[in-house]
Each structure stands twice: as C-alpha cells, then as structure tokens.
C-alpha cells in the first residue's frame, strides 16, 4: 500500500503553491514533510484530504484516485487528518467528539437504532465503551464529560489525534501537531505518535519543530517553493549542507536561540528556519 502524489500541482490564482510534485509515502514508517512557510506542506495535506482541488496531477492511495473525490468520500477511504488550528466540535463533549467519528461505520444501522425497541440504548452503550477505551489509551478518560472547548490546549491536540485514529485509518496526516506545545507536551506527543505507528499505517507529519522531526521521523521530505528539495533519513537531511544552511541554520545558532527563548518564557517555540530566513534574505 502506497500513497502516491504524481506530478501534483496546485495554483491559487497566480500563486504556484505546489509545482509538479511527485512523492511516495510508505506504510510502517513515520514520514515528515518540512520546509519553510509557503513551501507547500499544508497544501499537500489539504489536497490529499480533499479540502483543496488539485490543479493538475493525481493522488493515489493503493491505486485508487483521490483527487477527484469529495471530502467525506476521501475520509471513508481511510484518510484521516488533524488540523493546524484545532477543529474540534466545541459544543460537544470529549466523548461525543470521538463518538461522532464512528459515523461512517455506524450510519447504516441508524434505522435499526431508531425503530427497534431496546436497540437505542444497547448500541449507544457499545459506542460509549469503544470510545472510552480509546480515551483511556490517550489519557483523556477523565475529561470524557467535559466540553471539548474547555480542555487544555495540549489535551485538545491529543483529542484531535484520538479522533483521527479511532477508525484505524490507512493514512494519518498530522498538520503541525506540536504547534503551541511546550517541552513536556511535545515529548508526550512524540511518544503518542511513535506508539501509533503500525505496519499498515501511512503516517505523515508536517512540522516546524526540528528536534521533534529529527527524533521522530524515519524519512523526511524537504520542500521548498512547492518542489522537492531533498529527501532522506534525518541524519542525511541534517548533514546535507545545502538544506542545513538554507533552511535550518547551523546547529549552534539554533541552540543559542532556543536558550534565549527558554530564558524568556517556557512556552515560546522557535520556528528555526523562519528566523534564519528573516536574518538571511538572500537564502530565500
């Protein structure tokens, strides 16, 4: 099973966000997509998930074309994603947020659920049990009855991931899962993500947090201006001078910046390459 992007292009009017990109994502490993802002990373996810229409090219999951399908059809193909700016159902509880993700699987039985005496309660209890198990797995079971809007930011991110995984998707795409998390939360995230890896799951992480990317990924794609700049293992990416200088800065610079930031506030995360980019306009 492979997720293929074949010469995928995305144009927003005059802006070329993704330029004839061809990538393959394999199951069983964690693949990261990195690059400066505007490189096309989130666009990739949005195209795959059906939020954006592909301007040209194909996206194939196990030979099935995704690019023409509607959003919910793609989801039912087993493609799940999380959002950069969390999109939980605020007015629903944590439990319900999870429960509703079972819709594609259980919708067909609605008629039974409504008309057959006794079925309503039985089916509901089964659903709740299933969801509580998942919540326990993510450490959120204590918050089951709370509204999703009342959770802490870190827990909200975990809930997003829980929702994405409850139906055992074939493709899991995470859009900047570490954004806004502090040190401890990022570690917890790393462990959670590692534990999610399965031989039959294609996991794609779009991230800016370099330390997370390097320690988590098995394979990295580096994008720049909508094209693939480099790909390889974390070690290969880090040691590739071109990539390093242009987008990561030297390790020393990054550590200096991190130290300074930690002294100011615990929660500030350096977007390493963004800062570097601003200091070195010629590198753009």
């Amino acid at each position: 099973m492979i997720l293929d992007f074949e010469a995928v292009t995305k144009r927003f009017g005059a802006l070329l966000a993704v330029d004839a990109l061809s990538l393959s994502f394999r199951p069983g490993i964690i693949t990261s997509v990195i690059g400066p802002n505007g490189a096309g990373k989130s666009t990739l996810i949005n195209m795959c998930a059906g939020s954006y229409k592909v301007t040209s090219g194909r996206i194939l999951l196990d030979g099935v074309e995704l690019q023409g399908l509607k959003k919910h059809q793609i989801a039912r193909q087993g493609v799940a994603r999380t959002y950069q700016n969390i999109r939980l159902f605020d007015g629903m509880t944590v439990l319900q947020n999870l429960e509703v993700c079972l819709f594609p699987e259980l919708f067909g039985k609605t008629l039974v659920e409504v008309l057959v005496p006794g079925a309503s309660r039985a089916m509901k209890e089964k659903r709740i049990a299933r969801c509580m198990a998942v919540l326990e797995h993510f450490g959120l079971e204590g918050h089951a009855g709370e509204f999703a809007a009342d959770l802490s930011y870190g827990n909200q991110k975990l809930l997003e991931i829980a929702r994405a995984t409850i139906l055992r998707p074939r493709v899991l795409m995470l859009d900047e899962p570490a954004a806004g998390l502090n040190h401890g939360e990022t570690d917890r995230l790393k462990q959670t993500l590692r534990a999610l890896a399965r031989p039959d799951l294609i996991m794609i992480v779009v991230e800016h947090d370099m330390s997370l990317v390097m320690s988590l990924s098995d394979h990295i794609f580096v994008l720049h201006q909508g094209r693939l700049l480099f790909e390889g293992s974390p070690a290969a990416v880090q040691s590739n001078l071109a990539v390093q200088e242009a987008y990561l800065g030297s390790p020393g610079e990054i550590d200096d910046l991190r130290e300074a930031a930690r002294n100011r506030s615990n929660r500030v995360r350096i977007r390493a390459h963004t800062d570097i980019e601003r200091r070195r306009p010629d590198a753009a």
Partner: protein
Amino acid sequence: MTGFLVQQLVNALTIGAIYALIALGYTMVYGVLRLINFAHSEMFMVGGHVAFFLLAATASLAGGALGVLVVFAIFVVTFIAVGLLGVGIEATAYRPLRRSSRLAPMLSALGVAIILQNVVMLFVSRRPLPFPAFVPAVSFDVFGAIVTLNQIFIVVFAVALMLGLAWFVNATTLGIRIRAVSENMQTARLLGINVNRPISLIFFIGPGLGAIAGILYSGYYGIVVFSMGFIVGLKAFIAAILGGIGSIPGAMLGGFALGLLETFGAGLLPKLTHGFIGSEYRDIFAFSVLVVVLIFRPAGFLGETVTEEGMVYKRDF
C-alpha cells in the same frame, strides 16, 4: 411597442431604485455581522409613517420654494429618526448576541420586525393611510411612454444618495473603517478600531436609507400601511443577494436588476401565456430569481466567492 417597452423600463428603474436603497441596508449589515436583518424591512415602513405625520403637520407649508425646503427637511429628519431607531435596535437586540450562534441574532431580528409591525398596526393605524404626493404631478411623453416627475425624482434622488454612500465608504476614514470591519472584524479590532462605532454607523445609515426608500415608495403609490415592509423588504433582500451580498455596489446593481427582471418578467408573462399566468405571480418571480441565483451563482454579480482556503481555516460554512 416602443412605448410599452420604455414605459416598462421607466417603471423598472423606479422600483429598482427603491429596492436598491433598501438593499444597501441589508448588504451592509450582512457584510459586517453575517446577519440577515429582518427588522430592516420595517425601517422602510416606519420611515413612510414618520414622513406621513411630518407631512401632515406641515401641510400648510406646502407649495413653492418653501415647500421644497420643507420636503427635504422632512427627508433629513426621517433619515435621522429612523437611523437612530436602527442604532437603538442594534444596541439592544443584536449586540448582546454577537457571540452567540448564527441562529440567535436572526431570531431576534425576526422578533423585532414583528414588534415594529404590530406596534404600528395597533397604535398608529390598521388601515392604509393616504400619503400625500409631495412631487408635483407633472408628466412627460417619452417615445410614447408617460414618465412622471415623481419617477424621475425617485431615480435621480436614489442614485445621488448611492453615489454619496459610495464616496463615503471609499474616501472618508470612517467609511474605510466600515469596510475594514466588514472584511475582517477580528483584524480590525486588533488594529485598534473600536468596532462598535462603525457598526452603529452602519445601523444608522442603512435604516436611514431604508426610510428614505419608504418615503419615496409611499409618495409613488400614494399609501402607507403597516404591512408594506414585508414583501418589499424580502424583494430588496433578494436584490442584495442578486448583486452580491456584502457588496455595496452589488446592492445598487442588484436593486436595479431585480426591478428590471420583475417588471419585464411580470409584464411580459401575461402576454406570453395569453393570460394563463397573470401578474399576481409577480412575487413568485422574485422568489424564482432568488432560487436560480442561489443555485447557480450564490455570490451574485459582485459578491465574494468563498475561496477554498477560506473554507479550511474559517468556520463560516
């Protein structure tokens, strides 16, 4: 035939101008608050009534140059009075609900509309009141059609007001602030703009223009009645959608467009179907326009098409 067509054209422009004035109020409010202000149709009706009483009070001054001044003064006073009413309604019935669901402000607006209509019905008059003609009954023969001074006045006056509004939102700071708040309220706030002021201003101008439209309408048809806001308001809203809701030039364009569609459509239907479908289906015509627009081009003529990126990160849908 020419005479018939010119006649229809003139009629269309006249009613179109009125629709346009009302549509402006809908579009400005929707652009800023994403709220369909159901109460706006009643601003139109209240304006007609206010002017009715002012005209009655100053009937002795009618005629001549003084009369003209008095009429314009009445326009100004009505504008201000209804404008203030609009501001008051916003402050009491809409502002507290700004953070609520999409449904709540609409239902509140509905309630306000009902209140206004019934207050006028119960405490002013249940029956239609005869509205005095404040424009001299002069008419001209244009290519076989009869064009009255009233009609010319309505169109010219309405267009002048619209141009004034266009100038205001493009050339003055206050106007530009209004557009900023329309585009993106959060960002406007972050830029230090106190959003309540532009919003209140919108609720002053919009209803004010609606009131003027009410006066023009009542003067044209000779009566004013508590129920006149409902259908005309609905059509004006359709006009706003037709032109692109949220767009001020769109509302103007939509108003005239709807006037044309409705007049020519309803005018020609009896001829085409040999009387099978009569002009009482004129109202259905406007609704049909609405359905067609919303199916094939919801953005209308000049409205913003919600882009794909917008959909992923905004929760508007």
